[in-house]
């Protein structure tokens, strides 16, 4: 059993959480302009990273809040837990526009 550190509740069993897929997948700026192929890639295509992977989790049976987590897909090491809207802690900060979205569930 892994322990996840919920930003609100502290360490809890992994069974209290649900997975929300890859983090930092921005919604297309103009979804109407996409081809079917581009749209399907936005909807269904995700990275299959070996190593550090940024993903979204929700504390379903706790505070019911979403957060981001950086997890090593090989060792299951949890490298970081950080708020929705923040950029990946292991990468240079994103542009100002993304910083402004902090707090939104993106």
């Amino acid at each position: 059993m892994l322990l996840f550190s919920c930003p609100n509740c502290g360490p809890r069993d992994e069974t209290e959480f649900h997975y929300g897929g890859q983090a930092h997948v921005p919604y297309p700026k103009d979804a109407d302009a996409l081809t079917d192929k581009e749209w399907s890639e936005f909807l269904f295509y995700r990275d299959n990273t070996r190593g550090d992977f940024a993903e979204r989790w929700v504390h379903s049976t706790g505070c019911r809040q979403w957060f981001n987590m950086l997890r090593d897909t090989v060792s299951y090491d949890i490298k970081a837990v950080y708020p929705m809207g923040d950029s990946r802690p292991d990468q240079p900060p994103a542009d100002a526009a993304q910083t402004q979205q902090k707090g939104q569930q993106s």
Partner: protein
Amino acid sequence: MAQTAERENAVIRGLRRSPAVHLAEDFTRGSVSGVQGVTLREVPFLTMIGVRAAHGSAVWDRLGAVVGGLPERYGQVTGYTAAGGAGDSAGGAPGTAQGVSVLWLGPEEFLVIAPDAPDALDGGTFDGGAADGGAADGGAGGVSLLSGLLAALAGDPGQVVDLSSNRTTFELAGPSARAVLEKSCALDLHPREFTVGTAVNTQIGLIPAVLWRVDDDAFRIFPRASFADFLGRWLLDGMREFAAVEVH
């Protein structure tokens, strides 16, 4: 009109069936007295109101004024006790099982819990369950707890919803209550960590439930109605070993 509504209300209250009523006898039989005792009972029909408000907003302040403040941190329970509240095993201090309590479920989500009073949800002056018409001091003078909260919301962003039928209440108490819970709850329930007056949303025996320590060895557990049968039997199973005579 008001009298008709009152009569109908009384009829409906008489027809209610709590989610674990069929286990009442099992709970009594399975309860253990003595130094390693543990008792289980259902506290049916408590008033529960779901509240959502953005921290620091005007709505937050108005809703808080009705219920004695909204909790601001994980595990915190706020609330108030009605003057002259009837004696309850869990005592009468603010934020305990008597009176009106507000449990922190998330940064902007709370559960208001109040006694099963006919006037908590509609009509009359809600007095926090005080016996024999104790003085109303909840800041909701002249209106029910629910309508007091709805009036405080005043249509602004936020939420006030009657959730009384969503969950039932179990009370697990006695010197072995913590030992029973520890079999199926991964939280650190030691009193130095999980202090009296703490309430959290977590998992007990694989089902989601709100857990509230109302006294040193008394817990209130709030499972969803459909999980009440499972959790009741699950806890009874965990209590069985304490009925056996201890071997020295």
